[in-house]
């Protein structure tokens, strides 16, 4: 597993806030994401569909699977095998890499084209493949851009949302061996066409396709793949080997359940009524077929997920990775995805990263929230994200993971709160002190004891008497 980088959130956040190019990219993307989804959801009413009812149906489907996940996994495995696929299991990221490399070696693979797989990011699979002499080529345009940049995706559905057109141009010029040209938004179709031509060669020459799966269908043993670009279809049609790396929680029982979730996923992600390509892939090429993989391998991955079953965070496993939570998050749009330090950004990342990489490795993430619950209110499967973050904060305290200074201060406060006389006396002194500091003003502009607190705001100050004092005075009058 790629380790989350411990305690870097604050440091990164500062850096990202000052990155003007990133800020411009985020400010441009935010209204698009929010507006498109709102429009897509509103359009449901024209068909007599109620989004809240759909959300409940989605939540119910995902809960049904999680309640009996072992049974659904066994059914999926049986039926996928019956369809001609091989089903392998991986406990963690290292096992993913070992299994993929082993499949590649068995089939003499030297190049693998990839459609988006967040699990392969969890496993840092590209680095492992490269080290094993197998060239991984990301083919989603956004993933291709971040691969060229040597970066990780900064958004789960728009991986290169943080990149400006000039940055993309510089990467393309370098990779495609041509001089950098001045670019404006009118050139974006030409740039997409350039990437298309380069990636087409890779599609045609790769020996193996690696994808994730948006869902696994238990009744048919199929993988569902949702894309707009068509790269998912290329990667699963042209190479002789197809490897699907996905989490054990991705199962849905039936095709009908899948149809319900497809009314939620594209709308929540991009506001589309449906993505351009939705593929259900079952087994290998059939007799008489002139194309399609002759070998299909599922790798079902735990990597920390099973531990969430029966825990206070089980709801998180309902996630269908639409990205709506980050698209509506004020913290995400202030910082971008890289500030979160691991694979998953935004509110879902703030919950998943500590759970999958260890609470102690991501202490700041559950606090990267304003508590506004925009994420919770747009989540298509009703994951109570702020509640889960809050529960993680509690858990940090229970496990003694908070910094010593914070624990001492809170301990002191707790002791003081149990000494009413002393508390009142000290509170009265503090109220007078603050009033004196403020002078004639209603608020303190710079508070010397905690200057960072007043960097972006003023500290409002009361009348110089505590509530107790004022109350007692009023009763006397």
């Amino acid at each position, binding site marked *: 597993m790629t380790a989350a980088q411990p305690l870097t959130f604050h440091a990164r956040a500062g850096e990202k806030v000052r990155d003007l190019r990133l800020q411009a990219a985020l400010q441009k993307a935010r209204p698009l994401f929010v507006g498109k989804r709102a429009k897509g959801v509103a359009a449901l009413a024209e068909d007599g569909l109620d989004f809240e009812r759909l959300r409940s149906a989605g939540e119910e489907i995902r809960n049904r699977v999680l309640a009996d996940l072992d049974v659904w996994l066994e*059914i999926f495995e049986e039926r996928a095998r019956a369809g001609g696929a091989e089903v392998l299991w991986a406990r963690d990221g290292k096992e993913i890499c070992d299994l993929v490399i082993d499949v590649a070696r068995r089939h003499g693979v030297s190049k693998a084209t990839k459609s988006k797989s967040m699990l392969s990011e969890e496993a840092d699979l590209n680095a492992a493949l490269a080290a094993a002499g197998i060239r991984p080529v990301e083919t989603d345009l956004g993933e291709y851009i971040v691969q060229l940049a040597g970066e990780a995706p900064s958004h789960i559905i*728009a991986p290169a949302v943080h990149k400006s057109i000039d940055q993309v141009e510089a990467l393309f010029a370098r990779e495609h061996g041509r001089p950098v040209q001045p670019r404006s938004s009118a050139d*974006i179709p030409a740039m*997409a066409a350039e990437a298309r031509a380069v990636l087409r060669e890779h599609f045609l020459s790769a020996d193996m396709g690696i994808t994730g799966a948006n869902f696994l269908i238990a009744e048919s043993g199929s993988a569902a793949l949702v894309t707009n670009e068509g*790269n998912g279809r290329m990667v699963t049609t042209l190479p002789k080997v197809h490897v699907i790396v996905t989490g054990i929680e991705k199962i849905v029982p039936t095709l009908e359940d899948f149809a*319900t979730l497809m009314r939620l996923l594209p709308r929540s992600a991009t506001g589309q009524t449906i993505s351009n390509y939705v593929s259900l892939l079952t087994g290998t090429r059939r007799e008489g077929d002139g194309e399609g993989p002759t070998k299909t391998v599922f790798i079902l991955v735990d990597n920390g997920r099973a531990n969430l079953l029966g825990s206070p965070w089980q709801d998180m496993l309902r996630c269908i990775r639409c990205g709506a939570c980050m698209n509506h998050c004020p913290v995400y749009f202030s910082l971008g995805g890289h500030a979160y330090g691991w694979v998953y950004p935004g509110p879902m990342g703030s919950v998943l990263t500590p759970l999958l990489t260890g609470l102690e490795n991501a202490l700041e993430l559950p606090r990267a929230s304003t508590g506004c619950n925009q994420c919770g209110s747009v989540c298509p499967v009703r994951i109570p994200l702020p509640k889960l973050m809050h529960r993680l904060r509690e858990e940090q305290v229970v496990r003694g993971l908070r910094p010593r200074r914070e624990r001492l201060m809170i301990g002191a406060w707790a002791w003081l709160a149990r000494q009413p006389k002393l508390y009142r006396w000290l509170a009265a002194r503090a109220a007078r002190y603050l009033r004196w500091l403020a002078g004639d003003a209603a608020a303190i502009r710079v508070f010397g004891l905690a200057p960072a607190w007043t960097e972006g705001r003023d500290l409002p100050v009361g009348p110089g008497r505590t509530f107790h004092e004022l109350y007692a005075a009023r009763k006397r009058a």
Partner: protein
Amino acid sequence: MSSRDEILQRVRAGIGLGDAAGRRAAAEAWMAGRRCGPQPFLGGDLLGRFVARAESLSSSVERIAGRRSLPASVAGFLAAGQLGSAAVIAPELADLDWAASGLSVAARPAVDRDTVGITGCFCAIAETGTLLLLSGAQTPASVSLLPETHIALVDERRIVGTMEDAFALLRAEHGSLPRALNFVSGPSRTGDIEQTIVLGAHGPRRVHLILAAA
């Protein structure tokens, strides 16, 4: 212990339930029940709905009297767009008289140099303006994928309301699923450079639907 057994054991520890046989039977019963979630109310005009949705997804649409007229209408479309006169076709369309319309077609899976691909479809879905294509020897998936222009013949009698309806039709007519079910909704697109939508990402730039009444 194998990874498989260890993972399943962890899952069971988390769920904390016994009676594996009872839970299995309940799962089988759920699958057999095929319960549908909330579905849209589409009214009676599925054809009109399909056309409106397909056009909103940047596909062009024309209507012909019957399947036999397909080569002539394809020839007209290609000529109007200066798209040449050669195409790769799904073998299921090989019985039509393409040469009579001046077209040179090859019935096989597509290759990179093919610029026009012509397919039928298993059915079409009015809710979203989507085609459902099944892979198979007679219907290779690459024909609707590799060429820059994809032309699809849609039998108007096979326009269904929803994805659930398409699955029901599939179960009625096919025993098991083919290797690939591809739901196709317009030309391929990307928004990955500055969120600007560009058509023709990796798949077709242009999708033309020819609806046949019979």
